[in-house]
């Protein structure tokens, strides 16, 4: 068991004929992911990495039975690519692309919410269930199959956490990169719910950052609904207050968003806090010990 993806997930790559799309399609194939095809408008009929390329997602889905897609389409066209995947009824849409205009995502999210599809990202490393299925750009070798669910807004920080877990002998059930953009398809809470309901996930490690209020909301959710041991790290504790241009971010979050506020909310929910980025794996180990 795991969440979102497993050995049966059938994956296509939108933007497979691009340099980056092809490189990471090969990386996923090497890991053992069931890649079944790719999409690039106008390049249908070609073959990349031994996989058939289709002109549209709908054709690719009909021909391959794909139920997941990873998107490497350039930022100017990526929102359209997400809508195409949702329109074709692909259940899991993972957008890796960095640099999509925020307003494009504001147009995409209501369509995703009204559909049966789940969107992860954009601007994220992807999703991996170790030993079964890797969809995205994360280096495969740092992961080990196991029972810790991992989620984060930051790609490389997730790798760091996973690497620490692996070295401490704690494998992962599934690792989810939520994406660093202001508007993303899935939140900490969405993924917490999946981890809580997954019998194969025994503990949860999350990495947040200063700004916004997603971590505070996640802490409230954990307090109310999560029975599994949890640990968390907040990046940017020492980031200096910079020059101000406007105040609006602070208004929306109503005084939330500082590292102190986030750490207090997490601790109040009984979540073990990692004191430094080198302490993330150990914090999870402490959370498990405390819980047992």
């Amino acid at each position, binding site marked *: 068991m795991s969440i979102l993806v497993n050995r049966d997930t059938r994956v296509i790559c939108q933007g497979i004929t691009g340099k980056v799309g092809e490189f990471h399609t090969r990386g996923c194939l090497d890991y053992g992911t069931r890649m079944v095809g790719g999409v690039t408008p106008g390049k249908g009929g070609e073959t990349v990495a031994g996989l058939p390329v289709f002109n549209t997602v709908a054709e690719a889905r009909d021909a391959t039975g794909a139920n997941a897609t990873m998107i490497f389409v350039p930022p100017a066209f990526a929102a359209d690519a997400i809508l195409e995947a949702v329109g074709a009824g692909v259940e899991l849409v993972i957008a890796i692309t*960095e640099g999509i205009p925020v307003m494009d995502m504001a147009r995409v999210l209501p369509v995703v919410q009204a559909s049966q599809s789940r969107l992860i990202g954009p601007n994220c490393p992807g999703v991996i269930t170790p030993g079964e299925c890797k969809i995205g750009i994360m280096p495969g070798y740092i992961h080990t199959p196991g029972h810790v669910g991992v989620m984060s807004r930051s*790609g490389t920080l997730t790798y760091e956490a996973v690497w620490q877990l692996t070295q401490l002998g704690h494998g992962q059930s599934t690792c989810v990169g939520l994406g660093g953009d202001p508007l993303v398809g899935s939140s900490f809470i969405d993924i917490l719910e999946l981890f809580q309901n997954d019998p194969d996930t025994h503990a949860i490690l999350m990495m947040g950052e200063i700004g916004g209020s997603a971590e505070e909301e996640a802490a409230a959710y954990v307090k109310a609904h999560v029975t599994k041991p949890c640990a968390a790290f907040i990046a940017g504790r020492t980031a200096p*207050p910079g020059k101000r*241009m406007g105040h609006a971010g602070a208004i929306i979050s109503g005084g939330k968003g500082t590292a102190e506020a986030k750490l207090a909310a997490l601790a109040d929910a009984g979540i073990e806090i990692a004191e430094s980025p080198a302490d993330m794996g150990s914090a999870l180990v402490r959370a498990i010990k405390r819980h047992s």
Partner: protein
Amino acid sequence: MGYLPRLGSQFSREAVMKIHEFQAKDLLRTAGVPVLAGRVARTPDEAAAAFTALGTPVCAVKAQIHAGGRGKGKVRGSEQRGVELAKTADDARRIAEGLLAKTLVTIQTGPEGQVVRQVFVESGCAIDRELYCAVLVDRRVGSPVLIASTAGGMDIEEVAAKTPELILSEPFDPDRGLGGWQARLLASKLGLPTASWRHAETFFKKLCAAFVSLDASLLEINPLVLAKDGTLVALDAKMTFDDNALFRHKDLAALRDEAEEEPAEIRAAAAGLSYVKLNGTIGCLVNGAGLAMSTMDLVKHHGGEPANFLDVGGGADVNQVTEAFRIILSDTNVKAILVNIFGGIMRCTTIATALVEASKTVGFTVPLVVRLEGTEVEEGKKILAASGAKIITADGLTDAAKKVVAAAGKPEA
């Protein structure tokens, strides 16, 4: 990946482009949002001429810098405030003299302040009430929102913290825009006289439409004024734009005022790097914003002070990484550099090749500590070992942080 710690203790991770008040007002005027007549002046004489040309009994002379808090801010070494009223052309000249080429310190500039290079001379208006409004994207709602408050002209963060019930919020769909009913609802809650509702509807709807069509990331009107004649006017305007959308707004890119930005940050942006200069001694080169922030946390945890935030991003090539080293080394405070790369989309071989290249072309004058992990790590380590370049390698985060803090020596008090 952008990173700008620019919202006080908050920060905005997305990269944004700032413009001046007078530029924002030009854009608003074009979009049909009511603003007052005004002229930009770069000399005291121009300011006096602007006053005469505007022909109103009173004008405001406003310093144009990329920071707020100007009304309460003062010019360093004098009592000159960033915004003052002029009743004569001579007043306007005198105020402009007090501001131009001087350093204005406000709560948003930090103690170093910002040099004033131009002032905006703007017609006065008979104010009945001061309100607040802003348009921005709300992460939680997942859409743009118009927020408004009766607490105009005040520190809105304080209002939000102490009296959140005074902050009104209306989300809207980017394509449908703000509904007339939403504008009327706000007008009602703000206590505007019904005779002004028609003005409010036009004002709010056009403001929201401008936000969407210009791909703004923040459009803040503080104060928004209810004039004695019952109309609404944007007395101040702050506007920032989503960097990721500038590709479809070539005209907006021309509004960038590089004199307002840190030179090294401009250089970094031109190379596609995210760089923020700080005041410490340890230069940091990291991939990914979250890991870059964490690396700074770690350096501090071990007693060092980061000299910068630098995220080379996911797809950086050898040229970009070499430029990143040049930028870090251009900061004379830097006593040691920490490279922390966890390769995903970024390959360790790319960073290793760039390190070797940079050691030849740039020349490292300070110790370099390198921690590599991730995609193609073994090949990357081989490239470093084979090059014979003077590099201190580290295994893991703690080892890297300890080594770089030791290499930089004790931070200056």
